[in-house]
């Protein structure tokens, strides 16, 4: 059908791209994680498991990893709690306003991540909008300092940024719930609340799983929000990786942590995918 030259012309460039910019870096990362750094700050190309031992031995790495997972979990929960009702309202009750509201949910994605993170900085800072307002109405005497440079600020910012990512798959799955099933449920005597819990919610579970995966994976690997708003107590695992690759000049340890993170995320993706399959009926 197609000539050899044509087939080569369409397959070689993308394969080369994947090999050079995806497989090769992964391979390098993998190799680096088994190398080490000498006292003279030179990378020694001999195989060792030291980096992985270090990872388990020094408390701060695992602690930060767990804290990152905790933050990501909270972001996931809040994104779902915000995204689900919004998606439900849009899909079932917004009527003719649906398209407009949908655009309004999407618009923040057009604004740079950095701008949104800085916006929270000006809102939450000690001279920020929120503290000024709280003092103006005499709810507090002094600026609340836990608002900025804290895990709270990180969770808030990440929730704001990733809620649309949770919203979109949930909305898509709710749009796919056949409306005659909702009518059938009511017809059989189920109140609106019973209909929601027995029909609509179970059928939207694949969307919830996809949304949760987005929110969790994206916020777990985030490093800008903790960098800008996290302060010392809001440090996340990616910040450690960044500093290991940068100032600390310990690429092997950084590579080992990255690899562990990647395995973690991959395991999570497989898990949610199999759960999604179990809950889809089309």
């Amino acid at each position: 059908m197609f000539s050899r030259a044509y087939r080569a012309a369409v397959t070689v460039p993308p394969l080369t791209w994947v090999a050079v910019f995806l497989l090769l870096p992964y391979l390098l990362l993998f190799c680096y994680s088994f190398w080490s750094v000498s006292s003279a700050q030179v990378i020694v190309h001999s195989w060792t498991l030291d980096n992985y031992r270090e990872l388990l031995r020094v408390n701060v790495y695992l602690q930060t990893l767990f804290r990152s997972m905790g933050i990501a979990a909270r972001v996931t929960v809040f994104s779902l709690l915000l995204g689900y009702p919004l998606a439900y309202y849009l899909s079932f009750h917004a009527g003719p306003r649906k398209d407009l509201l949908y655009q309004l949910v999407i618009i923040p994605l057009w604004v740079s991540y950095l701008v949104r993170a800085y916006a929270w900085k000006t809102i939450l800072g000690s001279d920020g909008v929120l503290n000024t307002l709280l003092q103006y109405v005499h709810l507090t005497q002094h600026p609340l300092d836990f608002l900025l440079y804290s895990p709270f600020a990180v969770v808030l910012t990440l929730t704001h940024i990733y809620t649309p990512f949770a919203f979109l798959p949930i909305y898509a799955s709710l749009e796919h719930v056949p409306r005659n099933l909702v009518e059938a449920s009511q017809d059989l005597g189920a109140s609106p609340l019973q209909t929601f819990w027995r029909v609509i919610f179970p059928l939207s579970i694949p969307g919830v799983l996809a949304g949760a995966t987005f929110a969790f994976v994206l916020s777990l690997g985030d490093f800008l929000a903790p960098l800008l708003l996290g302060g010392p107590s809001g440090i996340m695992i990616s910040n450690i990786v960044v500093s290991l690759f940068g100032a600390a000049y310990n690429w092997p340890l950084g590579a080992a942590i990255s690899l562990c993170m990647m395995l973690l995320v991959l395991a999570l993706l497989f898990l949610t995918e199999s759960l999604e399959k179990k809950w889809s009926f089309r």
Partner: protein
Amino acid sequence: MATVSQNATPRSSVPGNEAPLLSVRNVAKSFGKNPVLRDISLEIAEGEFLTILGESGSGKTTLLRIIAGFENATSGEIWMEGQRLDNQPPYRRRVNTVFQHYALFPHLTVQENVGYGLRVAKVPKDEIATRVEQALAMVKMAAFAASKPAKISGGQQQRIALARALVNRPRLLLLDEPLSALDANLRRQMQVELKSLQREVGISFVFVTHDQEEAMVMSDRIALLRTGELEQIASPREIYSRPATAYAAQFIGHTNLLRGDVRSGVARCHSLDWPVNSPDGPVLFSLRPENIRIVDVAVGSSGVNVVRFRGHIRQRAFHGSTELLQIECEDGLKLSVRTATRDKWQGDLELEFTPEDAVPVRESAERI
């Protein structure tokens, strides 16, 4: 002597004197400026099988959805057993629906689907189990209790949808073209099953269809809808033999419409005339093809009070046991005549009909 009944009014009442189970009173519905139903009134008796028959766009499904509670009527009321029904949400109405595409819950098994209504009504677990079992046995689907709906065929899903509705023992069952997705043979089989099931459970059925044959086979009464208005409501026999309007006569079965003129008790159409009971003026008559007989000249006429005329065969259409002949009369009038296939008529014929069989019908106003 020819007796001609008065045209049956569309609001003919329920047979018998007991209070109706459901009454639809002057219901109208518009979507925006577009009227879908106009001033519909009808009553459904206890245990009755009523079919709402109409073409697509006649408003039949809308009427059903208003009874079920999925649409609000723009005006009018619906009463059930002495209570207003139309201001109740669908989940408080003792009415269940079999949906056109079954609407089985894909995430629940067959038995969970059937038990759904009982579960949301918080019926005790063991009672649910027995009633679901009985309902599945009734539709001969007990073997599929643990299957998911996606694993069973359309006809089987149909039975489950029926069991899921009937298990709640509704006062009234609504069926929205439930057989339209089935192939012809299964469809005929289900018509018979559905009818005998309805007799067995004694629940009133309101059955929506566009298929006049299906309506004739199954119903106690047929309500014929046309572009949102009730043309006629009567038993299949009545609606067939005494159609109220030209539309009813043509939609249900095949007919000849004869445009005649009545003058002092005699109707005249082309060169034919016969005695009638109608007031003077132009009248439209419906004459069924099977009511025109071909006279075997050797045997002679079958009666005295008959209209006799001559014609010849222009076309013939074979229908199995019967044949539909297109006859052109000597005066140019064209008529369809149904004969038994075994009578092999040819060429010029002598024909006759009894005056009572020419039923005066109202002209249906032409609507789009």
